[in-house]
């Protein structure tokens, strides 16, 4: 049995693995989603699977449950090779999955949901009484005593989760995969769910637990496997693993290299142009104070789901703030919609450019002039000559690789789409530009160009807010870095404090390294 210990050697082979993925490889057109990943799950173990978005967690799950076919490697269950062709097939082998969004039918009763497709029958008709009796008995195993004849939808998400788990375990019974089960639960409900997980663990099931909440991972899991960019970074027992070490594994930072000198030692001392006081929105981001100077680049760092994008969306009026106020110079402004933000000279390059950025069927030219046209209003069309000039200018300035400005933007590569969206905003000459993961999913060349551009824009006096998971990149161009954790702005690093080590520290929540803000 081959282990690939990256961080420390483990003696995981103490008991035979229940589920063993060997060298699992999955390629999608243009990307290797999983590269030779080994995964060992033992009976009676809660195994957390961690990694940033795009690390390959869901692909691995989908390979194990038959949604995807393997391009390489094999899966052993109880020592014998299986090749599940569908989730149904995986279920028959004993692997059940419960997703964040409960995949049951809210308009059917609890009992019907539990026995859907396998209802007990008597004389050819569904034996409701037996079904309800069985359902009650089944749920009693989880200490859940509810009326099984009520509609599923009338119960809380946590109860629905447990019902989904009960169904999955009843159907499969060896391996249970929980994909972000706690994402929409409150603290009490998480307790409830964890009780169930512990119960199942005691019964000898192998449980795979996926979550972005590190606290929960440390609480419930026995073993942690970290994936990054489709590769396994390592597998460690939870006990003895430090938070900092874990975050470093997830983000791919070697702890030694972090004393590197930072490029922008001098903080920006220009006039404050935008200030937000107590700005926030319930359920998305806790109220924060933020001052942005002219020509300043502010970096936002944090793990996925920590409130990075939520900060940007609140500033840009996508999910308008419900507390605090925003000032531009000395005038108070309100930002209830993206349009109001655009009118104030804001721009926003979203993280998901396919969904939120490009208008796929429109030409590159039309995509570039869209925001400027919206700003001028529909009655004042930009003359075609001017449109061509603007489009050509930015195609040249940003080096957008295309044969023709009239090509639908959907046909461009990711990096070029990203540049075109950037061009859309630059054409409006914004005063404040928000970039959410501007370098995600683009090739190295385009990557460097975008970083160079960010620095140029600052020099021209534009204020920037850049969200990025690439910490090294952030430390290069940011005058200040704000760290978010659990939907709160928790730390701020300026000037010499900005090192990747300090940022990783602050993300992990280690007190001494970064000055914690009083909350």
């Amino acid at each position, binding site marked *: 049995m081959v282990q690939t210990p990256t961080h420390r050697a483990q003696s995981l082979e103490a008991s035979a693995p229940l589920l063993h993925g060997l060298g699992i490889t999955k390629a999608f057109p243009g990307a290797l989603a999983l590269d030779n990943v080994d995964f060992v799950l033992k009976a009676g173990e809660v195994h957390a699977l961690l990694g940033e978005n795009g690390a390959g967690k869901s692909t691995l799950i989908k390979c194990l449950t038959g949604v995807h076919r393997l391009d390489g490697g094999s899966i052993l269950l109880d020592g014998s090779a299986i090749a599940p062709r569908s989730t149904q097939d995986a279920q028959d082998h004993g692997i059940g999955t419960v997703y964040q969004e409960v995949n049951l039918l809210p308009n059917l009763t609890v009992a019907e949901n539990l026995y859907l497709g396998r209802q007990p029958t008597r004389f050819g008709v569904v034996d409701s009484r037996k079904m309800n009796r069985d359902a009650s008995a089944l749920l009693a195993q989880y200490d859940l005593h509810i009326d099984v004849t009520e509609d599923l939808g009338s119960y809380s998400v946590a109860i629905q989760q447990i019902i989904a788990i009960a169904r999955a375990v009843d159907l499969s019974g060896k391996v249970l995969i929980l994909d972000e089960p706690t994402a929409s639960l409150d603290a009490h409900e998480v307790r409830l769910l964890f009780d169930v997980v512990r119960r199942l663990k005691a019964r000898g099931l192998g449980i795979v637990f996926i979550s972005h909440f590190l606290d929960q991972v440390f609480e419930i899991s026995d073993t942690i496997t970290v994936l990054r960019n489709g590769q396994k970074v390592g597998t460690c027992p939870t006990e003895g693993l430090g938070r900092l070490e874990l975050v470093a594994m997830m983000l791919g930072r070697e702890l030694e290299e972090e004393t590197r000198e930072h490029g922008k030692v001098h903080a920006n001392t220009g006039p404050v142009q935008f200030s937000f006081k107590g700005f926030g929105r319930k359920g998305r981001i806790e109220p924060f104070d933020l001052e942005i100077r002219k020509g300043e680049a502010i970096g936002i760092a944090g793990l996925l789901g920590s409130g990075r994008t939520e900060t940007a969306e609140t500033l*840009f009026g*996508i999910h308008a703030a419900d507390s605090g106020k925003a000032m531009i110079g000395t005038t108070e402004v309100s930002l209830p*919609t*993206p*349009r109001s*933000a*655009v*009118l104030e000279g804001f721009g*926003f390059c*979203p993280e998901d450019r*396919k*969904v*939120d*950025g*490009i*208008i*796929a*069927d*429109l*030409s590159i030219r*039309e995509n570039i002039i*869209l*925001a400027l*046209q*919206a*700003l*001028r*209003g*529909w*009655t*004042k*069309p*930009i003359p075609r000559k001017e449109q061509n000039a603007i489009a050509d200018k930015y195609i040249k300035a940003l080096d957008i690789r295309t044969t023709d400005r*009239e090509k*639908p933007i*959907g*046909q461009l590569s990711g990096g070029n789409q990203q540049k075109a969206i950037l061009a*859309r905003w630059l054409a*409006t000459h914004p005063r404040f530009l928000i970039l959410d993961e501007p370098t995600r999913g683009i090739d190295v060349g385009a990557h460097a160009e975008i970083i160079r551009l960010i620095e140029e824009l600052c020099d021209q006096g534009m204020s920037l807010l850049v969200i990025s998971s690439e910490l090294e990149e952030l430390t290069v161009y940011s005058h200040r870095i704000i760290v978010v954790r659990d939907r709160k702005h928790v730390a701020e690093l300026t000037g010499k404090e900005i090192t990747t080590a300090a940022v990783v520290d602050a993300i992990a929540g280690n007190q001494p390294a970064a000055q914690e803000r009083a909350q």
Partner: protein
Amino acid sequence: MTRQTSLPGLRYAPQILTLLVVLGLSASLFPGFLNVEIANGRLYGSLIDILNRGAPVALLAIGMTLVIATKGIDLSVGAVMAICGAVAAATVTTTGSALQAVALALAVGLACGLWNGVLVAVAGIQPIIATLILMVAGRGIAQLITEGTILTFTNESLVFLGSGALLSMPTPILIWITAAALAMLLVRRTALGMLIEAIGINRRASTLSGVNSGILLVCVYMIAGLCAAVAGTIAAADIKGADANNAGLWLELDAILAVVIGGTSLLGGRFTLLGSMLGAMIIQSVNTSILISGFPPEFNLVIKALIIILILLIQSPALRARLKPVRRKQGQGETSILVKP
């Protein structure tokens, strides 16, 4: 793939070809089909008849094209025709003023569009459901206005809109061609057309770019309502009365068909008003040809369906892709819905 990449004529080649085939077939079967003559200061003939009878569908298709371009659909336009016809008739019988009747009918059409637009853009109801409400309720409203009867009138100015002629050209033809020309100017000489396409392709991204998607959507439905009001007034003026039960009945479906035949995708985005007008004329040519052929009217719908299937097959991108190695040039005219992002 886009409208700029090919010769202008090539883009509408399938539609023009279809129209010519339908007209040619009729001309060969019925001698005199292409004859046009002047009598009593008005043009007569099958071709004129097609243009004249096609007015309501052409008018509805103008609004429908814009609505479909936003990824929506407006099922209520037929019912709105009935309402507006009834309003015009009721007004003209009580006040005697054709001007007031038309003004009120148009205002009611705009109000109907506003209702649909608010349901879609503000309440976020799916367009097919939102407009279904008025489709069902509208005919009832029209019946309430006419009090269940066919409300007739004799006001000559109003009747002129339906059966008069200006410079020997029947008025409905002049009205729909003017309306279509105005609409084309409106969408292509301003930025409205591009913004509508942007909303239809990706409403969220458009909103994030500062496009006022909500207000634009409401405006588009109001244009559809206005077009239906004009169509309803013409239809009422033509028969000198408002028939709440039959005015505009099923015409919303013909309008949708005209848009689709014209080359605008139901998935929204790129649209062509000229194509929709050609589509409306193709439908009317088929109608008129069947009518003068002397076939029993029962055949009408079946034959129409067959012809439409044929037209849509000719335009089918899937079919065209299969034939691609043979006829490369044909791909140019189609909307770009199949370009995967």
